[in-house]
Structures are given as C-alpha cells and as structure tokens.
C-alpha cells in the first residue's frame, strides 16, 4: 500500500524551476517519488546546476531540463510535448514562472506592463492550455503559484498585483471548466520567500518605503510563525494538492505565508 501523498510514477512540469520557489517545488516532488521537467527561460547555466542537484536526490532519470519562454504559446506547447515524449505521460503542471518589476504607478513603463501581463497571466494560461490534452488522459492536476498580492495590494508594483488578481479568476474559471475532465486546478499564495538567488532585477527593493526602526520589527515580526517563507513551504503544498488524497480539492487557494497576511 502506498504511503499518503506518494507521487511515485507521476510526471510534472514545473515552470520557472531553474531557481527559487520552482526549484523547491521540484525538490519536494522528487522526494515524493515523482519525475519532473525543470523549466527555465533565461538562466540556463543555473538551471543545469539545479538539474544536477535534483538528480542527486532522485536519480539520473528523475528530471529533464527544458528551456522555454512560457509567454509564447508555441514554446509552451513544445515543452508539453517534449515532456510527454521524454516521460510518456503528464500528471500535473505547476505554474510558477512569473516576474516582478517594482515600478510605482507613476513610473511604470508600458512595455513592462505588457511584459508582466504576458508572462504572469499569459504564461500561466498558455501552459494550462498546452498540458490539458495530456492531463485529460491522466485526470491530472494544475497548481498555480500566486501571491498574497492577489488579495492585498503591494504598494510597490501595481501591475504585479493586477496579474495576481487576474490569476484569482483564472483559477476559478479553469477549476469549473476543467472539472468535466476530472482535472483539478488549485492555487498557493506565498508571501515573501527567501530564495538562494535574486533575479536579474536591475533595482531590487530600491524604493524606500515606510521603514520603522529596527525595534519595531523586533517587537512586531512580519511573520508570526517566526520566519520568512522558504521554497519548500510551497513545494509540500504542491505535493499535497497533486496527490490522490486531494482528489476533491479544486478551485481552492491555500495561503502559505507564515500567517503574515493577517497582520
């Protein structure tokens, strides 16, 4: 008899998994017995390092690296096909590849508005459509990594929040539409997650915001549970949502943020 949440023999695509949260998700999937397509867009060298690290956990044939820009439907479709050709099946997708630019409303370049919409929303939609034919065969699942900023505003990147607000409805529409195929769609909302590597953002956290003195944060930590998020917090939630045990869960949103949004 299988242990709960066992994903042995299952195959997943995790977008944007060359680093950060996506990499943590792949790590959890592989530990749960699954095989994964690791996807990166720009930083292939880092994704190759990730591939080696994952293979050290789950063996030589547990992971497969595919470089694709998910905002282009043709590339999304090609990645789904390559995954199927390589592993012989697809049981699930984790939509994770997304961008944040940190422009304020008055300085937002319109080309970055378009970029965020096409990657954060368009990329998620492209991948969902690209894997659907394969998921119909396996009655598989889709999990979208969103953010607490699908619910509360950022105050530092309005378009990022808009894409996450749109994702809230993408989740709900997809959940009721794909239910007829037995395909489930769920969502995870992390808050701040410490990743091992910061993206190539030219001005990360440059904007000075309300900055209370250090004692304030010592007395009132931003994360009631005592720490910021880690990639595995989303990873294990993905394992659960993709497992047989979650077969009655669809259209749901799991906030995995150390309780920080409630402050």
């Amino acid at each position: 008899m299988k242990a709960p949440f066992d994903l042995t023999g299952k195959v997943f695509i995790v977008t944007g998994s060359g680093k950060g949260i996506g990499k943590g998700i792949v790590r959890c999937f592989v530990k749960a017995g699954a095989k994964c397509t690791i996807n990166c867009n720009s930083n292939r060298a880092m994704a190759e390092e990730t591939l080696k690290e994952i293979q050290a956990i789950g063996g030589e044939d547990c992971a497969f690296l595919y470089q694709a820009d998910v905002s282009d439907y043709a590339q999304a479709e090609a990645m789904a096909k390559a995954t199927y050709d390589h592993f012989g099946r697809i049981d699930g997708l984790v939509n994770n590849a997304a961008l944040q630019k940190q422009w304020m409303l008055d300085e937002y370049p319109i080309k970055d508005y378009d970029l965020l919409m096409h990657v954060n929303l368009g990329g998620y939609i492209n991948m969902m459509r690209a894997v659907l034919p394969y998921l119909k065969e396996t009655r598989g699942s889709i999990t979208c990594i969103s953010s607490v900023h699908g619910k509360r505003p950022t105050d530092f990147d309005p378009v990022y929040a808009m894409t996450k607000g749109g994702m809230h409805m993408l989740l709900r529409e997809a959940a009721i539409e794909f239910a007829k195929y037995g395909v489930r769609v769920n969502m995870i909302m992390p808050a701040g997650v410490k990743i091992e590597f910061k993206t190539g953002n030219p001005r990360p956290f440059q904007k000075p915001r309300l900055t209370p003195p250090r004692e304030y944060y010592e007395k009132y930590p931003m994360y009631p549970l005592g720490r910021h998020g880690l990639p595995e917090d989303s990873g294990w939630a993905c394992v659960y949502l993709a497992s047989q045990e979650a077969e009655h869960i669809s259209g749901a949103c799991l906030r995995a943020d150390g309780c920080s949004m409630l402050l």
Partner: protein
Amino acid sequence: MRFSGKTVYVTQADTAQGEALALRFAKEGANLVLGFGKEDLVKKVEDLGAKAMVVQPDMLTYEGAEALVEEVKKTFGRIDALIFNNNNVVKTDLEHLTREVFESQLNDNAKAAFVLARVIGLHMAEYHSGKIVFVSSIHCDKPTGSAVMYSISKGCINMLCKECALFFGRRGIQTNLIEAGAVEGDDEKFESTFSPLYAMGYMEERIPRRKAGTPEEIAAVAAFLASDDASFVNGASVRADGGFELFYGFKA
C-alpha cells in the same frame, strides 16, 4: 446638487450602462465627458441642463490618455471623477481561447483601466482631490463559466483598485469599485453550458426581489462613490447585485 461645477468622465458612454451613468451625473449637476458618446446622449445630457463633450481617446497609451486630459482641460478645466465603465464581454472558454481574445479582453477592460487610472489619477493629484470608480462586475470573484477572459480582466481591476487606493489615497483621491451583477440582459451575455448561474429564465429567480437590476441602480451607487459623501470610502468593493450572488439553490 452633489456634482455642481464638477466634471465627470464616463468611459464607454455608448452603452446602456454608460448612458445611465451620464444621465445620473447630469441630473446631479455635473459636466460630462463622454467616452465614445453618441449625439443623442449629448442632447439628453444638455436637456438636463448640463454640459457635455465627446472624447474618443486611445485608452491604451499614456500619450493618448494625456491628450484626453489636455482636451478636457481646455473645455472644463479639470476632471473631478473618472468612472471607468469598460465592460466588453467576449464569450470563450479557456480550452479554446485565442490569442486575439486574450489580447482584446485584457486591453479593453484591464489595460485601459490601468492607463486611465494612472494618467487621470496623476492629473487629479495635482489638485489633491478626485474620485476613481471602477464599474466592475461580480465576475471579479465569481467565475462565469462562459467568458474567462472577461472575469480575468475584472480580477486584474480588483487589485488595480486597491493599489490606486493606496497610491492615490495619499494624494487626496479615493478609488472604489462596484461589483455589479444580475443586471438586465446579463443572462444572455453570460449564459454557460455548465454553470447554472445564468440558466436562462432563472436569473431573476435567483435574485431575492425577483427582478433584475437596472443600469440606473448601478449608476446610483457610482454617484455615491464619486461624491464627497464617500470621502472615507477607499479601496472598497461594493457589490450591487440585489443579493444574486448569495443564492445557489432553488427554494421557494
């Protein structure tokens, strides 16, 4: 009259909802800027003793919106309230979504909202006063089962409203949103093959008062949110659907 001497810009004034908004604000004394308004609407507004101008801006570029602000400034001096009323509905499911519908729905409903809120918000911030009201939909939260890109675009606006509430709230402007629903004609607009929400002939049965909402009733909420009566309402979503969304079964 709550809007005497004020200028209200209503987008998509060539729709039934746009007309109801324009006439409501005209009755309360506002000067109207009518996005794509037709001649007969201009006449109706003027018959109410208000002034009106028609604009046809490019709502997808900052330059287009800035040109609109300059044009309005010449006639009315400034804009006091933006009533964002773009609600284009294209029916499609996700499985058969095309690139064209993805682009057009996001552009018409979300990008135009972003561009106009930004440009007109910054214009109103110069006076440290103004209102932004998004006439949105219950489909910023409730899925349609028939028009996925419409609801996604409304989800985007939900967060845009909250971002504007913070950013422009510090600059004297309040931003709010109406979740309109179950208005006359919505059952045809959103009929789904698998969601019973708008099952034909049953929409009104789902509304506790058993009568669909009217554009005038939505306009009344918009007038409140755009008025000084709502000076402490900011970043709020007001659901105006007669209780339609709360009902999910068929009881007596």
